[in-house]
C-alpha cells in the first residue's frame, strides 16, 4: 500500500456513513426551512418528508429522454461535485470516523472543487439545447465571478491568520472558547466570506440564476426522472457540504453531530431569512453589490490580518 500511504479500506464505509447522515440531514433540514418559509408567508407548507417523496417520484418516472452524452453526464458531475466536496473536507472535528478523505488536499482543493459540479452541470444543461438553460448558466457564471471574490479574500485572510491551509488545523485553532472562533478573532474575514455564502446559496436576492418566473428553473430546465433525482440529492447535499466549509473556517467547526446539525441549520437559515425578506437582484445589480460591499470588506480583511 506504499503508493497510497493514507488510504485504508476501512475509510470507505465510514465515508459512506458520513454521506448517509448528511444526505438525510439535508433532506429534512431543507424541507424544514421551506416549511418555515411557507409559514412566514402565511401558507401551510410542505410535509417534512416531501424531499423523499419527490426523489422517489422522480426515480419512478417512466418517460426518460436524453439529449446526448454531456446531458447524461451532467447530473453525475453535479452529484460527484457534492459528494466529493463533502469527502474532501473533515466533517466532525476530532472524530476519527468522519475525517473522510481530507488527506487528499487542503482548503484550496475544497475551494476549487466547488466548481466541479457547476461546470459539469453547465455543460450538460448546454447540451440540452434549451435557451433557458444557457441563459441560466450565463447568469450564474456572471454572478459567481464576483460572489466568490469576498470568499477568496476572506479565506486568504484567515489562512494568513492561521498560517495554514489545512482545514483541520484551522478548526483546531478555534477550539476552547466561542471567542476563539474566526467570527470573533477575524470578524472582517468572516463578514466578507458571508457575503459570498449568501451570494452563492441560490436564494433571493441572488437567485436570478434559476429565476422561476422568466426562465423556469434555469440550467436544470430540461432535466427530469432519475437525472433530476440525482440533482435533487445534490441540492440537499451540496449546500450542507458547502456550509460545512464555512462552519469549519469561521464558526469553530463541529465536534459532534449535534453541534454540526445546529450550526449548519443556523447558517442555512441565515440565507433563508435574507432570501424571504429581499426581492431579487438582476445579475449586474448583484455584481455591483458584491463590488460595492463584499470587495471592500474583503480588502480590509486581507489588509488588517
Amino acid at each position: 500500500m506504499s503508493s497510497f500511504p493514507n488510504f485504508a479500506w476501512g475509510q470507505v464505509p465510514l465515508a459512506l456513513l458520513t454521506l448517509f447522515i448528511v444526505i438525510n440531514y439535508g433532506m429534512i433540514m431543507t424541507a424544514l426551512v421551506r416549511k418555515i418559509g411557507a409559514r412566514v408567508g402565511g401558507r401551510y407548507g410542505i410535509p417534512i418528508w416531501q424531499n423523499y417523496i419527490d426523489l422517489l417520484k422522480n426515480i419512478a418516472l417512466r418517460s426518460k429522454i436524453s439529449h446526448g452524452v454531456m446531458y447524461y453526464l451532467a447530473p453525475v458531475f453535479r452529484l460527484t461535485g457534492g459528494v466529493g466536496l463533502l469527502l474532501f473536507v473533515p466533517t466532525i472535528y476530532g472524530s476519527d470516523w468522519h475525517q473522510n478523505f481530507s488527506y487528499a488536499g487542503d482548503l484550496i482543493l475544497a475551494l476549487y472543487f466547488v466548481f466541479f459540479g457547476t461546470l459539469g452541470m453547465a455543460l450538460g444543461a448546454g447540451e440540452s439545447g434549451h435557451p433557458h438553460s444557457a441563459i441560466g448558466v450565463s447568469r450564474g457564471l456572471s454572478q459567481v465571478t464576483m460572489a466568490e471574490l469576498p470568499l477568496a479574500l476572506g479565506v486568504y485572510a484567515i489562512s494568513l491568520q492561521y498560517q495554514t491551509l489545512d482545514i483541520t488545523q484551522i478548526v483546531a485553532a478555534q477550539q476552547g472558547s466561542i471567542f476563539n472562533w474566526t467570527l470573533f478573532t477575524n470578524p472582517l474575514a468572516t463578514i466578507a466570506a458571508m457575503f459570498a455564502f449568501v451570494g452563492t446559496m441560490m436564494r433571493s436576492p441572488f437567485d436570478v440564476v434559476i429565476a422561476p418566473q422568466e426562465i423556469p428553473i434555469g440550467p436544470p430546465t430540461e432535466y427530469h426522472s432519475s437525472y433530476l433525482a440525482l440533482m435533487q440529492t445534490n441540492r440537499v447535499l451540496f449546500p450542507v457540504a458547502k456550509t460545512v466549509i464555512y462552519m469549519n473556517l469561521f464558526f469553530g467547526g463541529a465536534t459532534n453531530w449535534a453541534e454540526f446539525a445546529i450550526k449548519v441549520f443556523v447558517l442555512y437559515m441565515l440565507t433563508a431569512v435574507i432570501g424571504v425578506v429581499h426581492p431579487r437582484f438582476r445579475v449586474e445589480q448583484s455584481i455591483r453589490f458584491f463590488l460595492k460591499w463584499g470587495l471592500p470588506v474583503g480588502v480590509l480583511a486581507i489588509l488588517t490580518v
Partner: protein
Amino acid sequence: MVSPLLILAAGLGAAFLLGLLRQTSERAAFYVTIAALGFMGFIALSWTVGLALGDALPVMITTAGTAPPFAINLFMGGMEAALISVVTLTGLLSAFYMRKDLLRLGRRVMAVLLVLIMALSGLIMTRDLFNLFVFIELIVIASAGLILLSRDTRALGAGFKYLVVSQVISILLLVGVIFTYHANGSLNIDDIPARPMVFTGASLAIFLVLIALVLELKPFPANGWALDIYESAHPGFSAIFSAASGTAAAFAAFKLFDVAGPAWLPLATGIGIVTFVGANLLALAQSHDRRLLGYSSVGQIGLVLMVIGQADILGATLPYVAGGILISHAVAKSGLFWLSGLVKGRELSDWAALRDNPVLIVAFATFIAMLTGLPPFPAFYAKWALVHALMANGAFALTAAFLIAALIEAAVLFRWFGMAIKRESRRAVVVNLTYEAVVLLAMGTSFVLSWIWGAASGQENLITLVPLLFALLFLPLDIFPAKAKNLLAIAGLVVWFALSFHGLDPIRLVFLIIMVLGGALLLLASFHAEGRRMGFYTPAMLMFAGMALLITSETSFQFFAAWEFLTVGSYFLILRGHDSEPHALSYIVFSLGGAFALLAGFALASGGKFTFFVSELSEIAPQVAPYVFVLLAIGFLTKTAVMGLHIWLPGAHAEAETDVSPMVSGILLKAGLFGLFILLLEMGHQTLYGIDLTVVLVWLGALSAFVGAVLAAFQEDAKRLLAYSSISQMGYAVFGLALMNHLGWLLALMFAINHFVYKSMLFLAVGGVKERTHTKLMYKMGGLITLMPYTFVSVLVGIIAMSGVPPLSGFGGRWIFYNAIMSTDLRLPMILVFMSGPVGFLYLFRLIHSIFLGQPKDELRMVKEAPFWIVAPQMLFVAFLIAFAALPGMILRRVDGYIGQIFGDQPLTWSGRIVDSQFGTWNPVAIWGVIAVVFITILLLLIWMNHNAQRVKQFNIVFSAERPFKPQTTHFAWNFFAPYRKAMGFLEAPIATGFWTGVSNALHGTAEFTRKFYTGNGQTYAVQLLLFVVAVYLIVLGSMGGAS
C-alpha cells in the same frame, strides 16, 4: 596589384573610346562599357581583398610627379577599396540592368555612365579639396544626364531641379574651398588638421566645405530637390544614385569630418539624426514605392552621417559600424530599386505582383531584413556596436532617437512587405531574366557580406549557425511536398534537442523541451497541409532556431540575435494568415520595439563591452542596474503581451493559420517568460525612485491576468478568445515570477508548461473547427459535439485543466499559487488575481458551449470531425494533461530542487506522490482516486436507473409549449455574458489601443504636415536649402560660442 589610378583611367578612357565608335554600333559600345566597368570593379575588388588579407599595403598615389599639395594625390586604403567596389559593381550591375535603355539611347549615355562611376570612384580616392569639387561637378552633370534615361516625363523636371540646387551646393563648396585655401594655404585635405580652423577664425571656411558635402547627402528637410529623382528616374539609375552616389558622398563627408577635428562632429551627429528621424517619418506617408525608397535612402545616409559624428567614441570601430550600415544600405537599396523594375504599378501594394515568383519574394524579404538591421546582415552587427558605444558614452537621447527612427523605418518597410504578401496584384510581374539575375546577385552578395561582417565581429558569426542554416535550407527545398519537408523539420528539431540539452539546468531544460520538442509535436499538425506549402518552413524553422539558440545562449549578443531570429521568423509565419496583414505589422512593430529595448538594456548593462555574458547581469553597477532592469523587462513584457503592450497579440494569434496559432501562442510567448526568468534570476530586486520594480511586475502581471480574462469573456471569435486568455495566463506567470519566492517561480514554470499544453491543444481544436466550419465566430456554430467528438474531448479536458478545477493539472497551479502568496508581503495585487480566476470560467464555458453544445445549425449538419493530423497532437496533449495531473512530480520535482538552490529554501516536500508544503497538502493520486470512484459509482447508478432513456431529436425541448422556430434563434450564444457586460463592460474601453492608435496617428499626422514643405518647386527647394544652411550655421555658431 594594378594601380588604382587605372580605375579612373579605364573609366575616362572607355568613355573617350565610345566617342570613336560608330554611331550605329551600340552593341559594341555597350560591351566596351561593361568591360570598362568590369575592369574597374576588378581592380577595386582585388585591392579590397589584398588589403583585407594583408597582401597589399595602402598606397598614396601622387600625380604629375610632384608631391602634394602642389599636385593632386589619391589614396587607396581598405575603406576606399571596399567602397569603390560597391560603386563600380553597382555601376556594372546597373549597366546590365539598363541594357535595353542604354542601347536605345546610344553610346553617349554609356559614356556619361562611365564618367559618373569614374567620378564617384575619384571622389572616394582623392585627397585634394579642389579635386573633390571637380569630381562633384562631374557627378552632378553626369547624374543629370542619366536621369533623362527614364521614359517618365517627370524625370525632366526632376533633373532640372537637381541641377539647379546642385549648383547652389557647388557654389557653397567652391566658396568654402576658396576660403580654406585662403586660411590654410593648402588645398590638400591632409593639411587641414595641421591648422584646426575652428580656432583660427576661419571656421566659416570649413563650415562651408562641410555643409556643402553634407548637403550632397540630401539631409532632411533640405532634400526635396533630390527625391523627385528617385521617383521618376530609371530604377537602374536610381540604384546607382542611391547606392553608389550615396556611398561616395558619405565617404567624402567622412574624409572632411575626419580631418576637421572633433569640434565639428556634433554637426554631423545633429544633421544625421535629424535626417534619419525625419526621412523615416516622411516615408510613413509615402504610397509611391520609389519615392519611399528615396526617403529610406536619405534616412540611411543620414544614419551614416550620424555615425560619422560618433567618430570620437567609436574610434577604430567606425569603419566597421559605418561600413556595415552603408554597405547594407547600398546592397539592399540597389536591390530594391532593381526589384522595382519588375513591378509594373508604382503603388506599394502593386508589389503583390512579386508573389508570382517566390524567389523574388525571398529577395524582397532579404533586402528589407538587411535594411532594418536584422541578423545575420551587416547592419545588425553595426547596430549592435553602435548602440553599445552610444550607451557606454551616455548618449541616451541619441540612442533613443536612433532606435525610435529605426523602428519607424521597420514599420514602413514591413508594412510594405505585408502589402506585397497579402494584397491582390492587379498586374503581373515583369518577366525579365536580366533583371532577376541582377536582383539575385545582390541577394547573394548580401549573404556574403553577412559572412564577412560576422567574421569580423569578434562575436559569433551568425550566418554559420547550424539552426539558421537549417532554416535557410528550406528555401531551396520549397519545391518539395510539404509532408516531406515536415518530416525533415520534425527530425531537425528532435536532433537539435538531442544535441543541445546536455548540461542545461532544469529551468532551461523545461523551456527547451517546450520550445523544441513542443515545436516538433505541434508540427505533427502540419502534416495536414496539402501541396508544397511554400514559404512556411523557412520562417517556422527560423522561429524555432531562434528559440533553441535563445535557451542555450550565454552572451548578450547570442541572446539578442536569437531573439531577433525568433521575432522575424514568427512575423513571417503570422503574416501567412488570411486576414493577418495589419496584425502581423503590429506584431513586428511591437516586437522590434521590445527588441530595441533589449538592445539598449544589454548595451547599458555591458558598459560598452561587446562580449557580455548574460550571467554578468548580476554584477552590474547599482546605479545603472535599475535602468537595465526596466529596459530588459519592457522587452520581455512586450513578448508576454502584458496589459498595455498587448494590443498586437489578439489579432496576431487569432488570424494566424491553424497550426501556426498554437506555435505562436503555446510556444513563442514562453520566450518572453524565459527572458523574465533570466532577468529576475540574475538581477533580482531592483529599486528605482524607491519603488521595488518586482512589485511593479507583480501588479502588471495581476492586471494582465484580470483584464485579459475579462476581455476574453467578451469575444465572439473563438481564436480571439483564446488569444486574450493567453494574455491572462501570461499575466499569472509574470505575477508568479515577480513574487520572487520559490513557489512563485514554481508557479510560473507550472503555468509555462500548462499553458503550452492546453493552449496549444485548444488552438488546434478551434483551428480544426474552423477548418470544417469556415468561421471563427462562435455564435455561428453550436451542437458540434456529436459531429466532432474528439475535438470536443480535447476542448473539455483543456478547459477543465485551464480553469483549475481538480483533478486536472490546472489545479496544481492554483495550489502552488495559494502557497506562494502565503509567503509574500504583497496583498493588494491578489485581489486582481482572485477576481480573474472565476472570470476564467466565463470565457472557457462560452468556448465549449457556443461551439459544441446548444443547437446545431442547418448549414453545419454535415460537418465532419477535424482532420486526423490536427486531432492527433490534441490527443497526445490530453494524455499528457491527465498524466501530469496525476504525477506532477515527474517534471516539477527536479525543477523544484533547482529553484530551491536559487532561493536557498525547500518549501515543498515530495514524499512518494504527495506534495506537502508548510501550509497544506496536495495529493494528486488521492484526488484522482476519490473523484474517479465517486464519479463512476454515480454514473453506474444513473445508468442502472436510466439505461432505457430515449435519445430525442433536436428541438424536442420544453419550450413554452411551442416548438422552437429555428436554431439561430434558439442557440443562446451571441453576447453570451450580456449581464456581465452590463456590470463590467467598462473594462472593455480600449485604453491601450487608443493610446497606441494616438501615437501612430500623431506620427502619420506629423508626416503629412511635413510633406507640405515638399512643394515640387525647384526654386522653393533652392531657397529651403539656403535657409537650412543659414539655420545650421547659426546653430553651430551659437553652440561653438557657448562652448568657448
